[in-house]
């Protein structure tokens, strides 16, 4: 039995819901050595900025229990190089390109949206308003509903009408639903969550902060419960808004967890660092998980955890190999 894995990114249909997470796959080229980039739902690029950027000093990374801190600081060659080199390459490989954009000002975001709209082949724009590794540490656009809305409004105004705009949210806020609502009111077609959480590691041998940038963004399975909670809360408040879920997804089971919480698509990030072919593996595992539960359409389980137990039970095929109680054990 083949499962219908098609997923909707706004009005755009993707063959399946598994994508790379921004900043964990470059522009797809390196991963193409290990996986067929056209076979996964989309490649979400590392955040593209208007100008080249050198990022933060090293060390930029620290391993933490079931997670890691990064403090890259959006190193990249800028939008010109992206449009000249990376986007054509992605398209030539038959990959769908979800382009993440980042900027220091609202105008920069708008310019980027304009530049990307002029280039053919951008599937969607993910607006990174929540990178913690920028100057105003922790005080990112996504921490404030008004500044979030300002960015999204500007991007939506400049992006071509048929390119969906997703706002990437930070979990480092008091109430993520407020931010989510502000973004959607400003015109966001969907939401991506979650970005990394701000964290810090101190080297007890040198007795100094481990990262040159002092603080960094925490990612990996350590933050998965936070991702599930954020997706759940937003789905509950805004049931009609598509969500790209990400945060510590390592297996198909993890992807399914985010989907049940309300994500229509799932991005795979940090796991790629120790398993370059993680996206295709997770896609395969997700299909197996759905088959094991007798689910033949991915869309049927998006946000299913919000339904009362009776509905969930109906979706779970009685002849499936996994019973509802077995699910509990698997966690």
């Amino acid at each position, binding site marked *: 039995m083949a499962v219908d894995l098609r997923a909707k990114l706004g009005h755009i249909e993707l063959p399946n819901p598994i994508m790379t997470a921004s900043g964990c796959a470059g522009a797809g080229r390196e991963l193409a050595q290990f996986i067929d980039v056209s076979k996964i739902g989309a490649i979400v690029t590392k955040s593209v900025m208007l100008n080249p950027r*050198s990022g933060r000093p*090293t060390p930029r990374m620290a*391993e933490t229990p*079931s997670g890691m801190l990064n403090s*890259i600081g959006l190193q990249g060659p800028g939008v010109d190089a992206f449009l000249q080199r990376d986007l054509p*390459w992605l398209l030539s490989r038959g990959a769908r390109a979800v382009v993440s954009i980042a900027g220091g000002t609202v105008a920069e975001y708008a310019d980027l949206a304009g530049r990307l709209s002029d280039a053919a082949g951008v599937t969607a724009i993910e607006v990174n308003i929540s990178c913690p590794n920028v100057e105003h540490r922790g005080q990112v656009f996504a921490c404030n509903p008004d500044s979030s809305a300002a960015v999204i409004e500007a991007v939506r105004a400049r992006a071509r009408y048929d390119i969906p705009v997703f706002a990437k949210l930070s979990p480092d806020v008091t109430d993520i639903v407020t931010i989510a609502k502000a973004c959607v009111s400003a015109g966001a077609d969907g939401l991506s969550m979650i970005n990394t959480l701000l964290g810090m590691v101190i080297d007890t041998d040198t007795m100094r902060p481990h990262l040159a940038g002092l603080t960094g963004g925490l990612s990996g*399975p350590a933050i998965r419960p936070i991702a599930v909670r954020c997706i759940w809360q937003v789905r509950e408040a805004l049931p009609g808004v598509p969500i790209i879920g990400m945060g510590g997804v390592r297996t198909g089971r993890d992807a399914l967890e985010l989907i049940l919480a309300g994500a229509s698509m799932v991005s795979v990030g940090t796991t790629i*660092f*120790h*398993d370059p072919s993680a996206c295709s593996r997770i896609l395969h595992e997700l299909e197996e998980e759905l088959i094991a539960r007798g689910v033949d359409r991915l869309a049927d389980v998006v946000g299913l955890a919000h339904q009362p137990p009776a509905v969930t039970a109906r979706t779970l095929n009685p002849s499936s190999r996994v019973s509802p109680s077995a699910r509990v054990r698997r966690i």
Partner: protein
Amino acid sequence: MTHSEIDAQAGPVQVRGTVLTVRRVDAYYAMTLVAPAVAARFKPGQFVTLAVGGPDTSMLLSRAFSIHDVRPDHGGTVEFVFAVNGRGTQWLAERRARDVLDVTGPLGKAFPLPRDPANCLLIGGGYGSAPLFSLAGKLKERHCQVDFLLGAGSGDRVFGALTARRTGRTAIITTEDGSLGTRGVVTDMLDQAIHDGRTDVIYACGPMPMLRQITVLARRYDIPVQAAVEEAMACGIGVCMTCVLPVIGSDGITRMSRACVDGPVFRGESVRWDEVGTIPFDAFGAPGWEPRSRRAAELRNGHGRGGDIRVGSPGAGGAELSGQPDRGRADGGEPDGGHADRGRLESDDQPEGSRAARGHAARGRAERASAERAGAERAGADRAGADRAGADRGGAAGGGAAGRHGHGR
């Protein structure tokens, strides 16, 4: 990295490798994995990454190890050396024969090899010497002379001292505690090694301060250094951007280059060793960097800012366009210009044609120019003026020559 390079057939693979042996070698461990696809693609200087901790691991980052050796037995084995200095390497040390590991490789750029027979000095610090022995094998195939200079804190931390003595024409060992060979560090013995071995090329792998020191000393003799750096990596495949260091490119622009895919082997002179761990002010995309177009416009309008070090950046405008009269082109534009008779390097890592003659020539010139950058101590207005003039007429000769002399060999 160009399309053709990364798309090359010889690219890395991710496979399940079966542990053949894990053995203690003095202070280190050596692990041999059966991984034919990795072994078949290997070139000296490349490395592998391993996922550690099993499927439910809490350690998410790959561990990178340079490949010590590959052998044809069992279809193809890969051996690497590691020290236990954390939970990940501890876990690795506890693996036993027939355990299966997730291994990716071979990764990174290999050591370029001399085109003609040359006297090669191979320098290793600690277990940084691990990749040097397979390199020595390749060098000997090309009828090169191989001298070793290995050092570490103590005798049990000098990896491969015996092999070096057995296989090298000469082998100098240094230890800081004097427990093996000469008391001291490798750079203490570098002058002697170069004199005795009439060294044409240096290959080095070890800690950053050692590589920096070697590059500085080798420049006195005008000997090219190929340095394999040790940078903390998270992925090893070029996506995570954590292993960056400032490297001067063939166009004279300093970029925060990834040690994993742009290296780990770099020309010693191209690395801004003193600024490793920082973002140089004038690095590509740093606050002090300015787009070439803007600078070109300034120059056209005669508004170039004399004395501004950015204007003086070698190769910024014209280095690619003309040769350096003082060196001539006798070296055929090889990266190691000036070593026409000795130590010319070619990288068989590069697919045919991807770096055609033009690329080589440009690289040779620009890298010479870039070497002078450090040497000239950013010599202020004179230097900048010379470079600007050079850019105007499409040549970096002025700046280049000034820099070289300014270095005061």
